[in-house]
C-alpha cells in the first residue's frame, strides 16, 4: 500500500450529524428480523425503495441463518453425538451466513450508503438489536457529488 499524505482538511472526517436506529420486528416471534418502516430522518438522503430492499435482504439472510430444516438438524445431531466438540473445529452454518451478511453490508456501504453520507453498522456489533445508520454532515469533501 502507499502512504497518502493528508492535509488537515482531509483528516477532518465528516462529523456525525445523527444516528438512526432500526429496531427489531418481533411480530413473527424471536427470529432476527428488522422493521422495514422508513425513518423520516433519511428522507432527504435515501430512496424508500433502496432502504426497504437493504433491510429486506438482511432479513432474508438472517432467516437463512436461523432456518430450521434438514441441514441444521443434521448439524445439531452430529454435534450432539460428538459431545459438542465438533464446534471447536467446524464453523457453524450461522457463522457462515454472518460472514455473508458482513460482506453484503460492506458492499452496500460502498455502493449506496457512503456516497450519500450514510453508514450502515452491522447489527452483530450491536448485539443484533438494531441496525444503526450513521448520518454524516453533508460536506462536499470527498462525497463525490
Amino acid at each position: 500500500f502507499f502512504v497518502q499524505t493528508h492535509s488537515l482538511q482531509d483528516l477532518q472526517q465528516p462529523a456525525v450529524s445523527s444516528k438512526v436506529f432500526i429496531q427489531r420486528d418481533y411480530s413473527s416471534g424471536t427470529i432476527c428480523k428488522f422493521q422495514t418502516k422508513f425513518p423520516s430522518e433519511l428522507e432527504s438522503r435515501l430512496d424508500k425503495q433502496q432502504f426497504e430492499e437493504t433491510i429486506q435482504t438482511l432479513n432474508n439472510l438472517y432467516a437463512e441463518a436461523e432456518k430450521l430444516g434438514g441441514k441444521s438438524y443434521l448439524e445439531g445431531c452430529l454435534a450432539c453425538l460428538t459431545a459438542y466438540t465438533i464446534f471447536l473445529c467446524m464453523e457453524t452454518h450461522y457463522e457462515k451466513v454472518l460472514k455473508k451478511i458482513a460482506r453484503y453490508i460492506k458492499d452496500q456501504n460502498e455502493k449506496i450508503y457512503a456516497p450519500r453520507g450514510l453508514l450502515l453498522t452491522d447489527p452483530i456489533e450491536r448485539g443484533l438489536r438494531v441496525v444503526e445508520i450513521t448520518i454524516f454532515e453533508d460536506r462536499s469533501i470527498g462525497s463525490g457529488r
Partner: protein
Amino acid sequence: MKNCEYQQIDPRALSVSPSSAQNHTEKKAQRPRRKWEVFPGKNRFFCDGRIILARQSGVLPLTLGLIVVTCGLFFAFDCPFLVEHLTVFIPVIGGVLFVFVVISLLRTSFTDPGILPRATPDEAADIEKQIDTSGSSTYRPPPRTKEILINQQVVKLKYCFTCKMFRPPRTSHCSLCDNCVERFDHHCPWVGNCVGKRNYRFFYSFIISLSFLTSFIFGCVITHITLLIDDMVMLSCLDSSLCTVVELVICFFSIWSILGLSGFHTYLVASNLTTNEDIKGSWSSKRGAEDSGNPYSYNSIMTNCCVTLCGPMPPSLIDRRGLLPPDEATPAASASDIELPLFAAKNDTHMVG
C-alpha cells in the same frame, strides 16, 4: 473541536488509514485491549476471553468433584468385580457416559448463555427520546413496557434499566450475573452459569446423560452388593464394600432430584417453554380471559424438541475476544467503523462459543 484537531496531528493518529489497520493497533502506546476486559457484567473470563463463567461459581467444583469421585470409586471398586462376574462392557459404557457428562457440564459452564450486550449510549439516548415524547417527565419514570404482537398474541416487553434497552421477548435479566440473557431459563448454581439460549442444549444433554450415568452406577452397585451377599464375601472385603455403600448413598439421593429435573426439562423442551416462563405462569390459561397459550410453540412435540435441541447454534453476541475500537476522541469514525466489521469477522473465526 480544537482539541480534537490537535490530537490528529499526533503522529500515532496519522497512521489511521483504511489499509493500515494492523500498524495502527501496533503503534498504539499501550497493548490493545480486548472487549472482555471491559465487560460490564459480573462474569469472569479465562484463557484470554475464550472461557466465560459467572462470578459466583461456588458449587461447580462440588458438582465436578461429586461426579469424578463417584465414578472413580465405581471404576476402582465395582468394575473389577463386575467384569469378572458379568461383562467387560460395564466399564466401557460407564466410561463413555462419564466422558459425555463431563464434556456437557464443562460446555454448559463455560459457554456464553446468550448474553445481550448493553445498549450503546447513542441507542439508549434514542430510546429515551422515543419514550419521553409519549409522556412522563419525572426524573425516574415508572418501569416502562411496550406491547407488541407476536403471532397474534399480545406480549409485553419490559425496559431494562441496567442494560438500557427494551428486552427482546423471552429475555430476562439475571441479577447474579448482571446481564440480560436471551431465552433465559434459570441461573444454575451447580453449573455456575446462567442457562439460556446458547447453552440450554448442553445443559439438557448434561442432565440427561447424568441421569443415565447415575442410574447405571446405581444399577451396577445394587448388582454388586446382591452378588456379594450371594457369595457371602461381604464381611471379608469391608473396604471395597464400604466404598460401594458410599456410592449407593450418593446415587440414591441424587437420582431422585436428577431424574425429576430431567423429566421437568423434557416437558419444557416438548412445549417450548423456559423455566422462567413456567414458574411465572406466563402462558397458563388461568392468567387472562384472552387467548393465552405459548406463542412460541410450534404445536408439535417433535418440532419443539428439534428446534430447542438441534436448531442452529446462534453466535455469541458479546464478542469477548474482539479488540476495543480506538478512542472515540479522534473523529476517525468512518475509517474505523469500516475496519471493525473485518476485525469482528476475523475474530469470529476464532470464537467458538
